């Protein structure tokens, strides 16, 4: 019965009852067998795969099982199924992914609307690479006259990329009105993220 434990079935990060049931079954064997994890994931439907990914956060894992789990996380992050993407970014995923793969995973969340707020320990994985990629993404959105998700700014300002931020600020003088407006809105969000007090207006 895939009811979310939090009562909100739309929360991509929330554990569901069936996730918990599967994790309990996997936790019986200690440590978890790498072959079990792989076989259950590969032969599973989307909910069963998510259950395996969630279980990686709570069951005891030896070296082989950790390696197998890392491959499942990588597989889940290649899908476009946001339930799997979110489940792959639990505590296990965060300690397993290298900086490159982690930055791509975060960008994928921003692109596809997986809320960053539900990823525990995200701030501790902030890197200059991630900040640069997010700022380049913000610039692309602004150049298209589109909005930029405000949740990216704390990760950008953990390692502010000078060249990319300059390029973004230059959009304030773009000939195109939509670009100027999008740049102003994005940079206002960035200021507010740094000092949450409301601005004079």
């Amino acid at each position, binding site marked *: 019965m895939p009811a979310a434990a939090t009562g909100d079935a739309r929360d991509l990060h929330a554990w569901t009852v069936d996730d918990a049931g599967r994790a309990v079954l996997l936790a019986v064997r200690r440590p978890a067998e790498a072959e079990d994890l792989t076989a259950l994931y*590969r032969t599973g439907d989307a909910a069963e795969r998510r259950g395996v990914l969630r279980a990686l956060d709570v069951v005891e894992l030896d070296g082989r099982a950790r390696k197998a789990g890392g491959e499942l996380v*990588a*597989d889940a992050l*290649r*899908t*476009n199924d946001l339930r799997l993407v979110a489940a792959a970014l639990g505590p296990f995923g965060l300690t397993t992914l290298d900086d*490159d*793969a982690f930055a*791509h995973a975060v*960008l*994928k969340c921003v*692109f596809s609307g997986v809320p960053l707020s539900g990823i525990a320990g995200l701030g501790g994985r902030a890197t200059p690479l991630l900040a640069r*990629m997010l700022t*380049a*993404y913000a*610039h*692309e959105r602004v*150049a*298209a*006259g589109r909005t930029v998700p405000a949740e990216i700014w704390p990760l950008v300002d953990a390692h502010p990329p000078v060249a990319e931020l300059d390029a973004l600020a230059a959009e304030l003088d773009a000939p*195109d009105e939509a670009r100027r407006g999008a740049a102003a809105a994005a940079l206002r969000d960035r200021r507010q993220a740094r000092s949450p007090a409301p601005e004079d207006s």
Partner: protein
Amino acid sequence: MRIFDPHIHMTSRTTDDYERMAGSGVRAIVEPAFWLGQPRTSVGSFVDYFDALLGWEPFRAAQFGIRHHCALALNPKEANDPGLAREVLAVLPRYLAKDGVVAVGEVGHDAQTPAEEAAFAAQVELAIAADLPVMVHTPHRDKLTGTRRTLDLCRDAGLPPERTLVDHLNELTVGVVAERGCWMACSVYPDTKMDEARMVKIVQEYGSERLLVNSAADWGRSDPLKVARTAAALAEAGVDADTIDTLVWRNPVAFFSSSGRLELESEGAPGDTFAGNSLQRGERG
């Protein structure tokens, strides 16, 4: 108006779409091989997919007077499955020899991993060996970096710029491709990648030389009529008919003609092999 949609995934679309596309002026398309939304687990799935792009889809398209061609490749995302990648690359050469294949594609980057880079480079070599042009997908994430890596990889492999088409470009990436003399394409989507109004501005800034417009319609929110809608937006913005014809017909014809396999004469008028809204399925009703 005559339209050539140089990038559309008809395998994800219905026969009604072919009918509406024909009504909007589409007379030729190229369907590049891509990711189906669900990871494939064996090379057999690719073989069946490639066969469909060379068999069923051209058959379906022909019933509406649309000439269907394809580009074949292992896509960047599935290049990250090493065993699968090896097997798919092994079957590609025999497919690249088929008449309906006018390019190698979509190749390129997704997460810009070493495995993607290796499959990309291997397929550029296959394209050179098969004397085919290459259609390159640029990534959603870190697009500018990915676009530059694409241009460098193609140049270093010895692929001539006139045989390189770099796709899914936006305001920040069109310029870097233009500088290298490669062909440029923009995918016009309902709410991502590029829209009609932005496309008008790009044409006004960069002109029509070596620039293509496609719908890239697939299983996501997309619209197989986007090339026609963009042509209408261009006309409304005062772009002349000759320039629009260059963008939506002559440029894709010029690029894919280098394969020596583009066939644009229609095999008979639409309407004589299908009745009403029904698709001929091998027997006549």
